[in-house]
């Protein structure tokens, strides 16, 4: 398996990068784990925040296909979402460091906030005050007024925020509905309590956990707080007394998700041990194992059917459980109250539910990849062990191979060819993300034949640069990418169309990393621009073409706009007679060829010509094509080339020789000898 690159966000010293995601036009199902779930009781809709960067909206009442639509402006894990304004607005936090404000009913993105400099991990929402707080790995907490966020437009793009900076990465955040208390949990292994009205001062710090605090719930009145930690415990804190009043050891492993009922009498918890427990806070010995999931639990969403403010006949208490798996389930809490008892045995206890009420299915995610050595195709394997073959240059799935042996498929597709590395692969979304970097994007040259396609086929040796062709395809719809020629009618006609094309729904992200680091300090933040391939040509309200001018990096513009051909890679090698020939090397100079794609045959011809000149001294060189052909075949019969004592195939190119036969750094050394019969 190829090495992973240092992915998109957070890895510094990148100047500019162009990335794209190979995906279906509509990714209906979650591709990866689900980080957060929100429920809209009015519309009975469910919002799920996926690690595949997509927020999906589901109809919980649907019989067949619950999928409604997606909101996909993020391009990294969506870590948390909150539903505000009675379900009209949704705020999402992502590892792409942004916070986005959405019109939840329409699914349009209202605003993007770049207030954080690192992954935004968590959000907290005070319903009564319509306040939202966000925090993440940049160690700062930011407060927003939802009303002002929703009012943001292209022209009115400022809002007042207030923020506080902590010393540790924040993994959890909670506010009570009235917004009087805000609690944060961090890798400092402690809780910090703030008053959101005066958000600068930390009211108190609660110590007790011995590991990261990953989940928090604050009671409605703001006097109590529950925290779940990687140390495996849940602690109940009295904020008035500033101390821990109970420690619940319910889980065998880290606690990652907490929910409490409105009256703060029962806590639901889930975590790394895949179990969901309900624990009676008044009597912590009373607990019920609600269900057992198949993957570590990331988030719980409690739906209270008959609470005072949300009175809805027919809806019983239930719990949505999101895990690192792409499907998520709804579990009934009906039996819970009855079952609570102090008598249980951790080993033998059975969950009260064996079947979920509902299940939203997800797709398997790609968990493994291998770039084939033509550097054009990628083999992947997903969590269901399906193997698939992808083409990078066309950004498409080539073939779904089904459940076959991954290693064998790799072997089967091995070709004796060496192509330079020119892109990196990223699987964090569960989809293939390809990164193109200035430093090596143009290093892959292949002959058109090898690629299995002959563009205009007038010459045998057509060489294609994969990076160049791919960039042309990605920016196909960008008007500036075309040269127009005035035809006889005075109309502008597009001349060349790319040799390849990518699906026009392909998502492209351009990164500008002007900084050495991202996230930590106040240094220049990196920046990015995200667009869909087909939108490059539209003058939509986001002013894409205009922006694209600013965003396309110069190295890509040279290719796309100015149609420059990337430089081929030079290769230097030494050509020496094989010791067995007895020929003394006349000169021991390095030979340099303009392209490492030069085939061995060419070198053989050179040698043959050289030898013949030596013998016949000034034989008039053939000036007909036919003779050239003959010459070439004669040369192939008379002379052979060796590298490291292995005879080379005449059709191989020199870089392949260097990679598979020479196998070392330093200039390639080739030996020639005359074939004896």
């Amino acid at each position, binding site marked *: 398996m190829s090495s992973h690159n*240092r992915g998109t*966000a*957070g890895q510094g010293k990148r100047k500019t990068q162009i990335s794209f995601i190979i995906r279906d036009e509509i990714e209906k199902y979650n591709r990866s784990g689900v980080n957060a779930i929100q429920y809209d009781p009015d519309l009975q809709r469910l919002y799920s925040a996926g690690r595949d960067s997509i927020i999906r909206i589901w109809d919980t009442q649907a019989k067949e296909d619950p999928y409604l639509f997606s909101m996909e402006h993020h391009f990294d894990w969506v870590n948390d979402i909150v539903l505000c304004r009675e379900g009209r607005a949704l705020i999402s936090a992502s590892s792409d460091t942004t916070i986005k404000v959405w019109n939840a009913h329409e699914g349009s993105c209202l605003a993007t906030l770049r207030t954080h400099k690192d992954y935004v991990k968590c959000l907290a929402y005070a319903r009564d005050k319509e306040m939202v707080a966000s925090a993440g790995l940049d160690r700062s907490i930011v407060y927003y007024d939802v009303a002002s966020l929703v009012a943001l437009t292209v022209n009115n793009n400022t809002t007042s925020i207030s923020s506080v900076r902590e010393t540790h*990465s924040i993994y959890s955040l909670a506010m009570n509905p009235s917004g009087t208390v805000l609690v944060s949990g961090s*890798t400092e292994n402690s809780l910090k309590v703030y008053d959101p009205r005066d958000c600068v001062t930390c009211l108190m710090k609660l110590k007790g956990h011995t590991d990261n605090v990953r989940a928090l719930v604050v009671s409605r009145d703001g006097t109590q707080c529950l925290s779940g930690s990687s140390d495996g415990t849940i602690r109940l804190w009295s904020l008035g007394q500033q101390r821990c009043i109970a420690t619940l050891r319910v889980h065998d492993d880290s606690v990652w998700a907490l929910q409490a009922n409105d009256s703060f009498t029962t806590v639901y918890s889930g975590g790394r041990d895949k179990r969901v427990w309900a624990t009676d806070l008044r009597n912590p010995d009373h607990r019920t194992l609600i269900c057992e999931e198949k993957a570590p639990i990331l988030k719980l969403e409690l739906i209270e059917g008959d609470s005072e403010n949300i009175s809805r006949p027919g809806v019983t208490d239930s719990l949505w459980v999101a895990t*690192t798996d792409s499907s998520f389930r709804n579990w009934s809490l009906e039996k819970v109250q009855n079952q609570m008892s102090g008598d249980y045995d951790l080993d033998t206890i059975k969950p009260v539910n064996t079947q979920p009420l509902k299940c939203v299915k997800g797709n398997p995610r790609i968990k493994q990849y291998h770039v084939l050595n033509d550097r054009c195709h990628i083999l992947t394997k997903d969590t269901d062990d399906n193997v698939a073959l992808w083409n990078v240059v066309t950004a498409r799935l080539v073939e779904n191979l089904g459940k076959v042996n991954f290693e064998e498929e790799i072997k089967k597709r091995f070709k004796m060819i060496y192509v330079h590395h020119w892109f990196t692969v990223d699987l*964090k979304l569960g989809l293939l993300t390809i990164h193109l970097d200035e430093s090596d994007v143009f290093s892959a040259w292949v002959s058109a034949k090898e690629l299995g396609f002959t563009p205009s086929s007038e010459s045998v040796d057509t060489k294609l640069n994969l990076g160049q062709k791919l960039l042309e395809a990605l920016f196909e719809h960008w008007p500036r990418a075309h040269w127009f020629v005035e035809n006889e009618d005075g109309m502008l006609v597009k001349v060349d169309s790319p040799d390849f094309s990518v699906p026009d729904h392909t998502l492209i992200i351009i990164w500008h990393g002007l900084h050495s680091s991202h996230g930590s300090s106040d240094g220049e933040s990196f920046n990015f621009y995200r667009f869909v391939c087909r939108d490059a040509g539209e003058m939509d309200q986001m002013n894409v073409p205009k922006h694209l001018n600013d965003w396309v990096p110069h190295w890509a513009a040279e290719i796309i706009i100015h149609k420059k051909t990337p430089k081929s890679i030079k290769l230097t090698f030494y050509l020496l007679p094989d010791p067995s020939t007895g020929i003394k090397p006349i000169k021991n100079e390095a030979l340099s060829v303009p392209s490492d794609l030069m085939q061995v045959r060419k070198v053989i011809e050179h040698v043959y010509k050289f030898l013949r000149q030596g013998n016949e001294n000034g034989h008039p060189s053939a000036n007909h094509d036919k003779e050239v052909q003959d010459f070439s075949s004669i040369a192939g019969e008379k002379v052979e080339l060796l590298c490291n004592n292995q005879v080379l195939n005449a059709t191989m190119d020199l870089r392949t020789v260097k990679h598979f036969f020479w196998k070392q750094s330093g200039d390639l050394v080739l030996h020639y000898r005359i074939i004896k019969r």
Partner: protein
Amino acid sequence: ASVMVIADAESPGPLKKRPRLSLKVQKNNESKDVKVGKEETDQGGEKGKEVFEEENDVIERDLNKEENSKSVVPAAASLENLGNTCFLNSVLQVLRYTPGFLPGLELLYQEIIQVEKLRKQDVLNKEDAGVFEPLESNKSIHLVKDLYRLYKNMEQREENHEEKATSDVMSMAVKPQKLLNIIRELNPMFEGYLQHDAQELLRCVLSYLQDSEKDLFNIKKNVLEKLPNKEVPKNVIMDRFLSKCARLKSENQPQNVFHQPDILDQIEQSEAAKTSITQTTTPVEADTACLAQEEVFKMENVPNSKLRTTRTPRGKKQSEEQKSNQKTKQALKQNTPRSRKGCDEPDGTTESKGVECNGRRKNTETGTSEVSDSGTGEEKMETDCGDNKTVNGKVNGESGKKDKNGKQQTILGMFQNQKAGKRLGMSRTILRNSTAKSGAACQTSDGLVNGHCRDEPGLGKTEDVVKCKSAPALANGVVSGSPSKNQSSPRKPVVKLEKCDRVCNSPLKSVSAQLATQKLSPCKSGSSPSKGSPRDAKQRLDFVVTSENKVLNSINLKAIKTNFIEDLFLGKMMLRTKCCECENCRERIEDFHDISVPVRVEKTEESDDEEKEEDSDSCLRKLMFAFTEVERLRDDNKYFCDTCLSHVEAERSLHYQGLPNILTLHLKRFSTSSGMFGYVSKINDHVSIPLSLPCLRYKCPSPCSRPDHRYLLYAIITHAGVTLTSGHYLSYVHVPSNQVQGRESPRHFLSTPTRRYPGQWLECDDETVRVHDEESFLGMLQGEEGSLMGTPYVLFYHRNTPVSTWSV
């Protein structure tokens, strides 16, 4: 006779002394220099005389210690400063007092000697002596020899304290010139008269020692491979013996005989029915290349049993075996097949016999240890010795061959005896080497080779003693040592050789000494005999005779690698990286030889205002845990998690997994960053040093209650001065009390003045050694009364367990 001088008052202060160059030293101590120089040449020429001291003498001196020590400089050898070489001296002193180090060095040294002989022998075999390339050409092996000689020299100085010591500090000083030279050859970094980093030197020396172990192993393997396997040993050996002895004689340098430590090889006998073990040792002399061996086998067998030597599986003994020399093995091998044949012929019940033998090994062991452990064993031993003598006489009589004419004849006699033994159906062979220098008890038997077989009618007891004098180097042959085989197949006759080096001539002493040695060098002893690891194998010299017919073929000599440096200093730590997202951990285990402890804990931005340092004194413990503190991979240094397939925050932490027996803590006092002028400068921050360290293993609950996981301070190297390239080093070492070592170290081993200053601390300041008792040292350490000279730089802790339990 000398005037009473308190060392402290008399010695020059360290500050005065710091810039001293070698020239100055010579000037100051011109008169002494001659003496020292002489010592030096003695040492170099390997002609130092062994001085035998009677035990009584030592005890007496112990009693008089107080008186004596006040009058002259302390009876602890010091090292002369050869021009800012205090960095070397401090390290050498610390190593000398490092538990388990001297025995390890001794073993390595003996191994070298043995390999050298093997090679010479190999060359002799081929009769082209010109090819012989001395092992000395290997510098790290050379280093071992020089180090050994230096310590030997120091030891002699201490033994001769009464005669030599005066009020002058130089009277106990030894010049480590040769060692310094070889170190400089190995690493030119240590050239010049500038001060060097003691820690760096320590690392170098230890790694050279490790190299030498490795090299030696390879050479040995090489040599052994070259040795002809199928050659019938007897004639070759005889020839070589003769030639060697002839050479010896012609050289006629009896003094030479003593310059090397003697090696006493013992064959431990376990008898089938009634176990009685006799180990007789006599001081043996041989020429410089030869080690004297003495092996005594005494066996009592039930009537039908053949003679068989068995070995005890006990770990304790293994250390001895390890020391035993290949020659011995070979010599024995020759004997064994023959004797076996002899005994096998009469009866075919070998196998059953073997089982019995094995079954009784335990008894034998305990018996042996009892004898050796208690002083009361002496008488018994003596009588046994006497027994042997008479037995020997008898054998001689029976075999009708008496050789009293000298070494060659003795050797001849040995073989003759073997023949005799064969004829007699002897099952046991006792090899005994004796020398002209041997004590009175042994003298009678000196030069005799006896084979004796005696049958006691009622018990059917057979006792065979073959006493032979042999120069081990001459023995040639291939011997196989395979402990696991022995263990697993008790039916096979097994011979165990145990070897002990000794200088003194009292057999009783040697036996007890030997046992003490075993205790002192436990790190060498394999913990589980059944494992059959190379080390185990090394520690056992076993003969496995699979069948009578295949005697020769089945015997192989195994080359085994020693690695006492690793055993003492190597620890393991685990690097654990925990993803903050999925909380999966990745663990990687790494070796370490020392722990570098930052003196200043860098204040991270994370450090909380509320958590203020309790005191400005950085406690070592705190610093050490700061070292193991979690490192966070975050911001633009995120960690790529294989599970999340994304860059995530992670926590990286170090955990001590396996801790070494000797824990070396290196305080990072020299830093390039803190210097004002851009060069390496020193952080002089005070670090309070605890006498003991708590358990550091991450697996243990905190606090760990197991006392054997604790560490005790035994040495400190301090540095006075402001920069790395200047200043003065000195070392404080703790002299182990007898309890710690279990037993006082045997005299023939490299030793430290344990007896004189048990439990006290020595301040080794080049030529000057000052003695502090525990209390005052503690006071100095805590800065209550006076203080240490210089700031602590390298700290040495040993495991809070007897050295004997340091099995790996």
